[in-house]
């Protein structure tokens, strides 16, 4: 992703980030805190041990409305392979916007909120996603929510911290969504996140966001965490980062995301197909893809980052799509694509690092088991 320093959009919590010592960097067209004085390593470990508060207001919040619930669900099903119809009110699911050739346009979370759907999409994709949905869903309202911030509170201490402000969130289970009041503000809460830890994502009106953030930061064990640690946390959790691990050149099966395509949408299901790329995607679910996203553990301490080429003997067989040092493992971790024949955990491969070969082993994902409250 190329970044320009001009035309960066400041987010509503910019002043708070600066007060907290956040180091601001350009990210997806926004000025975002990449780290705070604690540093990426400690921020990462703090989130796994206690609770981290992330500002993810750059992400796109979208409301889909204007028809009866079944019509809305079927409309979204025409663009994503996940089952939307049948998702209970108050529940959220992970899904993929797909292209006619089976590639992935974006990954997203969608929630059934009774008379409408609430969707959260990636910052860099949101303009394209919204245009795509508006163009493809005539008669349905697709509106970006532009007056709310999105906070993520993640880690084993998240429940106690948020429940101190809103006790009812303790009763929510993984992927529940609710509209609640905190200090008079209407807050949209989901029990989810993208770190592999238990926690919440909280959508709050922009002019109420700083007060809520301060109230959360005042709770024991809650620290502000930047994008740097968010990236290493999601990588250890084996979660895909759009435009790196998944792109228009990768399919759901290749990305090991078949779990996001429920039975109803698969061959033989009640509403099989009917989404862009269905032919290739369903064929790959049936017969298996040629290559697969896998976990990779470099041997030694050198991180292997995006773009590092993977070899078996003299043949280049794949490439790293995300790689970093995993603070919880105190070792480098990576994800990438290799042919299915080499995708079995334990397979020893080589990577080319600065002109030299170094061993790396295929590992199962996630590297750190998820801690969700199911």
């Amino acid at each position, binding site marked *: 992703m190329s970044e320009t320093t001009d035309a960066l959009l400041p987010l509503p919590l910019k002043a708070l980030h600066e007060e907290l010592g956040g180091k601001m960097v350009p990210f997806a067209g926004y000025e975002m805190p990449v780290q705070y004085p604690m540093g*990426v390593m400690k921020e990462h470990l703090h989130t796994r041990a206690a609770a981290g508060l992330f500002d993810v207001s750059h992400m796109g919040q979208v409301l889909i409305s204007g028809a009866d619930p079944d019509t809305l669900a079927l409309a979204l099903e025409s663009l994503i392979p996940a089952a939307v119809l049948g998702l209970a009110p108050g529940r959220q699911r992970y899904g993929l916007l797909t292209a006619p050739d089976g590639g992935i346009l974006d990954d997203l979370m969608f929630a059934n909120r009774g008379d409408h759907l609430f969707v959260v999409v990636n910052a860099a994709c949101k303009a394209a996603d919204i245009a795509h949905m508006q163009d493809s869903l005539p008669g349905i309202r697709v509106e970006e929510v532009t007056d709310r911030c999105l906070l993520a509170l993640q880690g084993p201490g998240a429940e106690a911290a948020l429940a101190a402000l809103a006790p009812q969130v303790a009763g929510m289970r993984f992927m529940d969504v609710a509209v609640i009041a905190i200090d008079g503000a209407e807050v949209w809460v989901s029990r989810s996140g993208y770190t592999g830890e238990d926690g919440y994502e909280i959508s709050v009106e922009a002019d109420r966001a700083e007060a809520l953030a301060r109230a959360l930061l005042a709770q024991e064990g809650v620290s502000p965490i930047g994008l740097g640690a968010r990236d290493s946390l999601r990588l250890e959790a084996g979660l895909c980062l759009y435009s790196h691990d998944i792109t228009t050149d990768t399919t759901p099966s290749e990305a090991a995301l078949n779990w996001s395509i429920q039975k109803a949408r698969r061959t033989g299901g009640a509403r099989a197909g009917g989404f862009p790329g269905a032919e290739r995607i369903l064929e790959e679910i049936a017969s298996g893809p040629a290559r697969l996203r896998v976990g990779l553990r470099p041997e030694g301490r050198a*991180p292997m980052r995006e773009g590092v080429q993977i070899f078996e003997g003299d043949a280049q067989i794949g490439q790293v799509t995300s790689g970093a040092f995993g603070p919880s493992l105190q070792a480098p971790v990576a994800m990438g694509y290799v042919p299915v024949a080499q995708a079995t955990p334990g397979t020893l491969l080589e990577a080319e690092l600065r002109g030299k070969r170094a061993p790396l082993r295929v590992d199962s994902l996630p590297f750190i088991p998820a801690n969700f409250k199911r």
Partner: protein
Amino acid sequence: MKFTEEHEWLREEDDIVVVGITEHAAEQLGDIVFVELPDVGTEVSKDDEVVVIESVKAASDILAPIDGEIVEVNEMLVNEPSKVNDDPMGEAWFFKIKPAEPGQMDDLMDEAAYNKFIA
């Protein structure tokens, strides 16, 4: 002590020069998790990439600040890369180089000039 625009420091000890990175650089890089050192005996030219350092997020290079021969490397950093964050101007030096050309350091910044450079 002399400084480069690449945020290295150079300290002369008899006829060799000890090289490390400045506190400013260590702070900018963030948590250092990996250091790859050159082989002792390597002949380097100014601006050759001699050391790879990686933080949690990114890889960077340290360039040879002068021409010469690498005569010693700080093996401690291989197992304890975080020393670079703890003590960049002291214990966490990277390599010692025997200058090929005396006087090559004369053009580098002194401490006052470096402080002005990063201000």
